[in-house]
């Protein structure tokens, strides 16, 4: 009898736990009654928004979303889901396939074409018109980048070309003038040598001139910038084959390799140049403007910015643009609410640029006196005209991936981690890998 009781009780516990887990949450209680009284016609709507931007920009974006949620009169609540870029780009395919795509998502301009080809995105012209977003006020390059087959597939948010960050204190300590950052490749090497300081003479400098790293996106984006500085190309004109296995491609690799192993101004096998610059371990860094927010927060770090030095024939630097894209969900009222949020963000393009470090995409902001007063933003603003994007291909994620299995990362790693690398072989391997990806269906 007692046993039976124990059994019954344990069953009860198990099932109550099961049911507790399975019971659907009660439908959202209408807590929003207060605003509903002011505008009784408005039906509250909650929009899912995926954000791939990492720290510190995601904090700023979060604050702006809160502001929008509080101030908009359309009853729209934006619910942010934070993802890193790699996860976002794979998750959007998975979730779209299962009908769970978000109403709006951040996306790099160069990834639009791939996601459009997969059928994930919807054109935005009609929606933009409906909320009164004026495409005439957008800077040409980022807007044109959202055009696919004559239709716009996203709303540009910002631009982010590479620029040179330098540590002002380190410059002064080395007798360099922070008002005159290096402009050419030779100047850059000369500066970097002066900034590489090995006080105890043990062969391991305490401060290095330049943070480059060997893996991830940064090294190969810099390599591409140097390729473009020589008029070289990454892919052929119709993006069907690699076009970088040239003397220019090799010269660009050699330049970066020499910084580490010949001039010895950048640490070999550096894992995190971005962090190292923030900690004062390297005195110069070439990065996107997203560094601005982070570096400004670091106490005791006084930094300046400049354009990427021209090591070859003409100025060129890698760049990209963040956009808002709208997965095709056949729910016009949700897409419209999402577009209202995108318009609000676009109308606050100055605040976004100021707080995130990125370049504005609205002409009225880019030309405004209040933006021109942001001194550290100007070298990036000047770079925008020389900014080169990844060539458009529906294989963006695979060709230009930042993962160590991606062709360009493998190429940089095999060159940057060895003192005497076979550069010709490394670039040929990358060429073969890119061609294989482009040829596959």
């Amino acid at each position, binding site marked *: 009898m007692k046993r039976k009781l124990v059994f019954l009780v344990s069953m009860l516990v198990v099932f109550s736990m099961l049911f507790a887990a399975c019971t659907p949450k009660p439908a959202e209680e209408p807590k929003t009654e207060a605003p509903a009284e002011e505008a009784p016609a408005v039906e509250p709507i909650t929009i899912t928004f995926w954000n791939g931007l990492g720290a510190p920009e995601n904090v700023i974006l979060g604050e702006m979303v809160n502001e929008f949620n509080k101030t908009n009169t359309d009853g729209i609540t934006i619910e942010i889901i934070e993802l890193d870029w790699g996860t976002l780009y794979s998750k959007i395919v998975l979730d779209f396939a299962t009908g769970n795509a978000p109403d709006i998502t951040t996306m790099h301009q160069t990834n639009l074409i791939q996601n459009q080809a997969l059928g994930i995105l919807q054109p935005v012209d009609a929606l933009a018109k409906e909320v009164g977003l004026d495409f005439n006020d957008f800077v040409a390059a980022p807007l044109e980048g959202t055009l696919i087959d004559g239709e716009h597939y996203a709303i540009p948010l910002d631009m982010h070309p590479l620029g040179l960050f330098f540590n002002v204190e380190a410059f002064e300590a080395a007798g360099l003038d922070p008002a005159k950052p290096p402009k050419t490749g030779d100047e850059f090497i000369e500066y970097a040598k002066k900034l590489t300081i090995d006080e105890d003479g043990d062969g391991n400098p305490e401060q290095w001139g330049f943070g480059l790293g060997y893996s991830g996106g940064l090294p190969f984006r810099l390599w591409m910038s140097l390729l473009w500085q020589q008029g070289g190309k990454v892919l052929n004109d119709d993006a069907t084959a690699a076009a970088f296995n040239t003397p220019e491609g090799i010269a660009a690799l050699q330049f970066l390799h020499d910084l580490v192993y010949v001039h010895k101004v950048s640490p070999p*096998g550096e*894992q995190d140049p971005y962090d190292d610059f923030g900690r004062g371990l390297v005195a110069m860094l070439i990065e996107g403007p997203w560094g601005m927010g982070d570096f400004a927060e670091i106490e005791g770090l006084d930094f300046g910015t400049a354009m990427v030095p021209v090591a070859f024939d003409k100025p060129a630097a890698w760049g990209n643009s963040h956009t808002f894209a709208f997965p095709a969900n056949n729910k016009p009222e949700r897409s419209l609410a999402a577009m209202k949020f995108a318009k609000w963000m676009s109308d606050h393009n100055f605040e976004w640029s100021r707080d995130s470090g990125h370049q504005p995409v609205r002409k009225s902001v880019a030309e405004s006196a209040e933006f021109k007063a942001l001194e550290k933003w100007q070298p990036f603003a000047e770079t925008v005209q020389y900014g080169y994007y990844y060539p458009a291909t529906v294989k963006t994620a695979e060709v230009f991936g930042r993962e160590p299995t991606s062709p360009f990362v493998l190429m940089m790693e095999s060159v940057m*981690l060895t003192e005497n690398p076979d550069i010709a072989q490394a670039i040929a391997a990358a060429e073969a890998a890119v061609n294989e990806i482009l040829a596959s269906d």
Partner: protein
Amino acid sequence: MKTLKHKSLPAYILLAPYFLLLLVFFLLPALTILPMSFTRWSLLDKPKFIGFQNYQKLLSDALFWKAVGNTFYYTVMVTALLTTLGLLLALLLNQNIKGRTLGRIFVIIPYVISSAAAGVVWKWMYNQNFGIINSYMRALKLPMLPFLTSTKWAMPSIVFMNAWWSVGFNTIIYLAALQGIPQEIFEAAEVDGANKLQVFRYITMPFLKPITLYVTVLCAANSFQMFDEAYMMTQGGPVGSTATLVFRIYNTAFEAFKFGEAAAISMLTMIFIVIMSLIQFKVSKRGG
């Protein structure tokens, strides 16, 4: 018969939720892998049957074989290290020594940390230029090592981190097994005049055999599926030297969206694990 049924009913009911979840979230999806591996499928289009093409492509793919090599290298090193180290630590902690309880706690503590967190911490410690290990090496005038940044060192570095992280698990299992050996046998051996080595060889070892099989099979199958450590610490690099089979499955499926090919790698990985476990069972049987 009736009573038997009646008695086992509660057990079935209690097990049912587990098996239901296993069926829905593990077994059924796992079974779809086989047909999927004969298709070309990007998830958004219709799967297209292509026969053995995925397998043919893989078998002639240098990167796939590199991943196979990396995986076996890692598995053999981790299994050997974890089994020996686990046994040694267990023998040590089974002695009547001071600080035994503290030692037992310390051995198991790292295992409580998630492998991802452990990976991040070790990534910092391993940093070639500014990491804590190399700053000690430097202070001792030893050469600084490129732990995670050379193709030669990256995998051993991950193996070492994994040994630190998970040796406690094997230690605890061995410890439990050691304490399960009846004390009288040891006493009898002592009376018969056996020395310590003989006691270990003829009493401890045979008693630990089933547990050793369990530990090595589990350890090998687990490390064959290593992913999080490499994902957190090296992302499969440098130059693909820590990209394992599971890493390739992930890349192929979720970065290149080739679900058919990823399914084929999964099938081959499973076949490798089955063969490996069968060999382990065979070897242990012959030994007994």
